[in-house]
C-alpha cells in the first residue's frame, strides 16, 4: 500500500534530521502501524486507551445496574452478555470480575498507558524541540507491548473460568489460589501476563521519556525553561521506572506461589471447597501488599502528574497569564515524586502493621498535602486577575482543579490512621480516589485532548459538544461520587454487590438507584465525546493558523500538520521560559523570541 492520503503530503518536505538522510518512501504499515514517529505512536496510545476507556466504563455501568437495582432482573442484559447475566442478573462471580477488570483497565490501561503514553509521546519532542524520541524503536516497542498486554487482558474475559475477580490490587492468598475463587484460575495467569507486558511497555516508554528530556532539548532550552507539562511527564516517567520493577517482582513471586510450590505469600491455609490443608507454611501475605503498594502509591501520581502538568499549561495559556510560581510548581512536583515513594503503607494501616511504623507513614502521607496545597493555591493565583478564555481545554482544566481539591482533602482523612481504621475499604475510599485520581485525571486528559487536538489532526473538535461534555461530566461526577462519602461514613463496605441483607447498610437503596442513573447518563455523554473525536478527525473545522491558542511553546512553531521530524529546516532555538503572557503589554511572547533590550525582568 502506498500513501496517497492528505496527511502524507507535508511529509515530503520534511528533513528528517540534521543529517537529512532518512528520506525514504514509507508504506502504510510502516507509517501508521509499525510507526516510529512519536506523534503516530501517541495517537496509537490515545485510541487504544479510548477503546479501553469505553470497555472499562461500560463495565461500571453494568455493575452499577446491579448496585442500583439489586432485586431486579434485566432480560436484555442476557441478550448482550449471555452467560454473564443468566436470567438478566449479574452473578456474584461476574460482578467481581467486572469490578476487578474495571479497576485494572482504568488505572493501568487508560490512565497510565493511555494518558502518559499519549501525551509524553506527543508533547515531549514537540515541546522540547526534538525531532523524535531518543530511541524511536524502543518507543514503538513500548506501544506494541502495551497492545500485546491489552490483547491478553481482553482475552481473559472470554475464558471458561472467567477473568480474574479478586480486586485490582490482587491480594494473595485469594489471587494465588484457584480453589478459593474461579477467577484466580487461568484468568489470573492471563492477568499477570498482561500486567507483565504492561510493565515492560511502561519501562520502555519511561526510559525513553527520561533520556529524551535530558538529552534532546533544543538549543537554549534549559531545564528551567521547560514547560510544566514536560516537567510533569518527566517526573511521571521517573516514578514509573523506579516503582514498576518492584510490582513486577511481586507478581513474579505470586506466579511462583501459584505454580512453583513456593510459599512467599502463603501460610496456614485450609481450603474448605476441596477439604484440604495446603502444604505452604511460613509465607507472609502482607509481603505482597508492601510490594504492590510500593508501586501502587506512586502509581496514583503516575496517573495524576501528567494531568497536573497539562492543567498548569492550559490554565496559563487561556488565562493569558504566566503560571504563578513556576519554580514552586516544579519544586512541588519534585517533592511529590520523592514523597510518593515513602507513603505506601498508608494503604495498610489495618493489616496489623506495627503501630509505630504506621505513625511514621501518617506523618509522611500528610506531608504530601503540602506540595499539593502549593499547587492548588498557585493555580488559583494563576487565574486571579486573568483574562480567561473558556476554550474546551480551559474548562476541563478548571474542572480538574475543582476535583483535585475535593478529592485531595478527603485524602487527609484517609492518611490519618486513626480515621482510616473507620473509613478503610468503605465507600469513602471509593469516593476519595475516584474524585482525586479517576475523574480529575480524566479531566486533565480531556483538557489535553481538546487543547492539542488541533496539533494532532490539524482540525478542531466541535466546541458545543465539548461544552455539553464538560458540564454534564462535571455535574455528573459530583452527583455520583459526592454522596458516596456519606455511605462511607455509614461504614458501608466497598466491593459488595448487594446490601439488602445488612441491617447496617440497607438505608441507601434510593441513593444507589440515583447514582446508577447518573452514571448511565455520564457514560452516554462520554460516547458523545468519542463521537466528536472521531468525527472531527475527518470532518472537523480546519486549523488555518499555526498557533490557534496564541501559546508560547515550541509545538506551535511547527507546521500545522508536522511530518516525521516535526520542523521543516532547523529546529527553533529557545530564548526564554514558556510563560511570557501579557508581559510588557504584549499578549504573548513565543519561546523562540530573543529577550529584547528593553524587556522588563520578572
Amino acid at each position, binding site marked *: 500500500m502506498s500513501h496517497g492520503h492528505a496527511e502524507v503530503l507535508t511529509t515530503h518536505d520534511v528533513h528528517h534530521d540534521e543529517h537529512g538522510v532518512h528520506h525514504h518512501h514509507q508504506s502504510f504499515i510502516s507509517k501508521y502501524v509499525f510507526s516510529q514517529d512519536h506523534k503516530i505512536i501517541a495517537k496509537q496510545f490515545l485510541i487504544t486507551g479510548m477503546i479501553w476507556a469505553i470497555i472499562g466504563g461500560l463495565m461500571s455501568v453494568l455493575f452499577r445496574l446491579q448496585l442500583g437495582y439489586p432485586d431486579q432482573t434485566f432480560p436484555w442484559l442476557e441478550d448482550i452478555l449471555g452467560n454473564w447475566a443468566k436470567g438478566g442478573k449479574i452473578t456474584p462471580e461476574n460482578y467481581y470480575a467486572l469490578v476487578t477488570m474495571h479497576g485494572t483497565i482504568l488505572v493501568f490501561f487508560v490512565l497510565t498507558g493511555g494518558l502518559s503514553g499519549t501525551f509524553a509521546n506527543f508533547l515531549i519532542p514537540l515541546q522540547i524541540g526534538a525531532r523524535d524520541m531518543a530511541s524511536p524503536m524502543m518507543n514503538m516497542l513500548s506501544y506494541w507491548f502495551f497492545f500485546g498486554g491489552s490483547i491478553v487482558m481482553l482475552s481473559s474475559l472470554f475464558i471458561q473460568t472467567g477473568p480474574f475477580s479478586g480486586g485490582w490490587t490482587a491480594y494473595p492468598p485469594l489471587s494465588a489460589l484457584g480453589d478459593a475463587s474461579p477467577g484466580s484460575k487461568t484468568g489470573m495467569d492471563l492477568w499477570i501476563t498482561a500486567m507483565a507486558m504492561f510493565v515492560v511497555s511502561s519501562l520502555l516508554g519511561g526510559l525513553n521519556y527520561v533520556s529524551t528530556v535530558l538529552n534532546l532539548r533544543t538549543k537554549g532550552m534549559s531545564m528551567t525553561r521547560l514547560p510544566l507539562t514536560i516537567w510533569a511527564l518527566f517526573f511521571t516517567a521517573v516514578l514509573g521506572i523506579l516503582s514498576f520493577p518492584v510490582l513486577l517482582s511481586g507478581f513474579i513471586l505470586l506466579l511462583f506461589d501459584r505454580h512453583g510450590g513456593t510459599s512467599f505469600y502463603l501460610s496456614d491455609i485450609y481450603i474448605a471447597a476441596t477439604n484440604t490443608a495446603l502444604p505452604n507454611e511460613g509465607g507472609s501475605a502482607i509481603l505482597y501488599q508492601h510490594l504492590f503498594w510500593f508501586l501502587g502509591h506512586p502509581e496514583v501520581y503516575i496517573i495524576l502528574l501528567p494531568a497536573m502538568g497539562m492543567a498548569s499549561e492550559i490554565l496559563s495559556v487561556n488565562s493569558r497569564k504566566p503560571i504563578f510560581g513556576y519554580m514552586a510548581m516544579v519544586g512541588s512536583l519534585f517533592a511529590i515524586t520523592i514523597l510518593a515513594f515513602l507513603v505506601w503503607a498508608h494503604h495498610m494501616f489495618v493489616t496489623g502493621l506495627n503501630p509505630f511504623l504506621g505513625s511514621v507513614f501518617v506523618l509522611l502521607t500528610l506531608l504530601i498535602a503540602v506540595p499539593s496545597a502549593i499547587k492548588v493555591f498557585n493555580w488559583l493565583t494563576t487565574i486571579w486577575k486573568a483574562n480567561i478564555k473558556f476554550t474546551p481545554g480551559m474548562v476541563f482544566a*478548571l474542572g480538574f482543579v475543582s476535583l483535585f481539591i475535593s478529592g485531595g482533602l478527603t485524602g487527609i482523612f484517609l492518611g490519618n490512621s486513626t480515621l482510616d481504621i473507620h473509613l478503610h475499604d468503605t465507600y469513602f475510599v471509593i469516593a476519595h480516589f475516584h474524585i482525586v485520581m479517576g475523574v480529575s485525571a480524566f479531566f486533565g486528559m480531556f483538557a489535553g485532548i481538546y487543547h492539542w487536538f488541533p496539533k494532532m489532526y490539524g482540525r478542531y473538535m466541535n466546541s458545543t459538544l465539548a461544552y455539553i461534555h464538560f458540564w454534564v461530566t462535571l455535574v455528573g461526577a459530583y452527583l455520583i461520587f459526592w454522596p458516596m462519602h456519606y455511605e462511607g461514613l455509614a461504614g458501608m463496605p466497598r466491593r459488595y454487590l448487594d446490601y439488602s441483607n445488612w441491617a447496617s447498610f440497607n438505608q441507601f437503596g434510593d441513593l444507589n438507584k440515583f447514582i446508577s442513573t447518573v452514571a448511565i447518563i455520564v457514560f452516554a455523554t462520554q460516547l458523545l465525546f468519542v463521537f466528536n473525536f472521531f468525527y472531527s478527525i475527518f470532518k472537523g473545522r480546519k486549523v488555518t493558523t499555526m498557533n490557534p491558542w496564541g501559546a508560547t511553546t515550541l509545538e506551535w512553531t511547527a507546521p500545522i500538520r508536522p511530518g516525521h521530524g516535526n520542523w521543516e529546516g532547523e529546529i527553533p532555538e529557545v530564548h526564554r521560559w514558556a510563560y511570557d503572557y501579557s508581559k510588557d503589554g504584549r499578549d504573548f511572547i513565543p519561546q523562540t523570541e530573543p529577550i529584547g533590550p528593553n524587556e522588563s525582568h520578572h
Partner: protein
Amino acid sequence: MTTTGVFLLAILALGFLITFQIAKASEYVSVLKGEKKAFEQNNRINGFLMVVFLVLGLIGVYMCNEALYPKTLMTHPSASDHGENIDTMLKITLLITGIVFFITQILLFWFAYKYQYSEKRKAFYYPHNNKLEVLWTTVPAITLCLLVGFGLYYWFKITGEAPENAMRVEITGRQFGWIYRYPGKDNTFGKKYFRMIDEANGNMLGMIWKDSAMKTPNGVQNLKADASGYDDIIETSAMYLVKGTPVKLIINSRDVIHDVGLPHFRMKMDAVPGTPTTMWFTPKYTTEEMKKITNNPNFEYEIACDQMCGNGHYSMKGLIKVVTEQEYKFWLAQQKPSYKPAEAAPAASPAPVADTAKTAAAGTANAVLAAK
C-alpha cells in the same frame, strides 16, 4: 433483543442525533456570525455557568448533607470508647478540611467568572511572589502538624496494649463466615494447627485435641494433645461481649485475607492467614440499649467483612451481642465446650449424662436470650 433494549437504544440514538445536530448548527452559526463574536458569546455563557455551578453546587452540598447525614453513623454515639476518639478526630478533620474546601472552591469558580475575557481587561503579569508562596507552604504545614498530632495521640491510644482485665475472644474468618472462640474456664486458648482442621468431625479450627503424627512437607510432626483446649468454646452464631468490659480480639483467618469490620464500634482489623492480629475496645452500650439509641428495633451489631475474600464477600456477616455482665454469665454457663471426647478418642468412656441435660438447658437459655 427485547423491546426494552431496542427502546433504550432508540432513545439513546435519538438523543445523540439531536445533540449532534444542535452542535453542528451552532458551528455554522458561529461561522456566519464571525469567529470573534461566537467566541465572546461562548465565553459569556461558560463564565456564567461557572458561577451557576458554584451556587447550585453549594446548595447541593447543603441539601445532600441534610438528606444523607442522618443515614450515617454520626447521628448517634459510637458504641465503643475508641470510637468516640475517632469521631472526635473526624469532626476536627471535617472542620479544617471543610473550611479549606469552601474557600478554595469559591475562589476558583468566582475567579473564573470574574476574570472571564473582556476586550477591555488586561491580564496581570504576575509570575511569582515569594512571600505568598512561603505563606501557603507554612500554613498548610502547620495545620497538618496539628492533624497529625491529634491523630497520632488517638492512634497510640487505640493501638496500645489492651488493659489487664480485658476478656479475650478469638475470631477466625473463613470463606464466608466467622468462627468465635472463647478460652473457657481455664482462661487459656488451647493450641491449634491448621492441618488438624476436620470439618466433618466438628474441628473447624484445627484444635489439637489428641496426640497425632502429621505428615507435613517438613517431615513428620508429632503433635501433643493440648488439654487447655478441652474447655474452649467454639461458636458460629454470635460473639457475646460485655458492656463496659474491655475485649481483646485475636484475629485469624483460615484461608484468604478477611477483615473484621465493626462500623458501630468504628473498629477494623484484617484477618490474615498465618499472621494473627489483635484489636481491643470497650463496648459502651448493650444491643438492647442501641436499639433505643438508634430508634431501630431491628438494630444489631454486625460484623462486616471489609477485605475482598472471594465471591461470597458481600454476604460475609457476623454478629456481636453486647450484653450485661449478668446476661453474659448466664449465656456462658449454657455453653458447652466443643471438645467431644467420644469423637476425639473413640475408646474413651461415653459422655456423662449431665452433659446431655446441660445441652437441653442451653437450648432453652438461648431461646430466652433470643427472645429478649
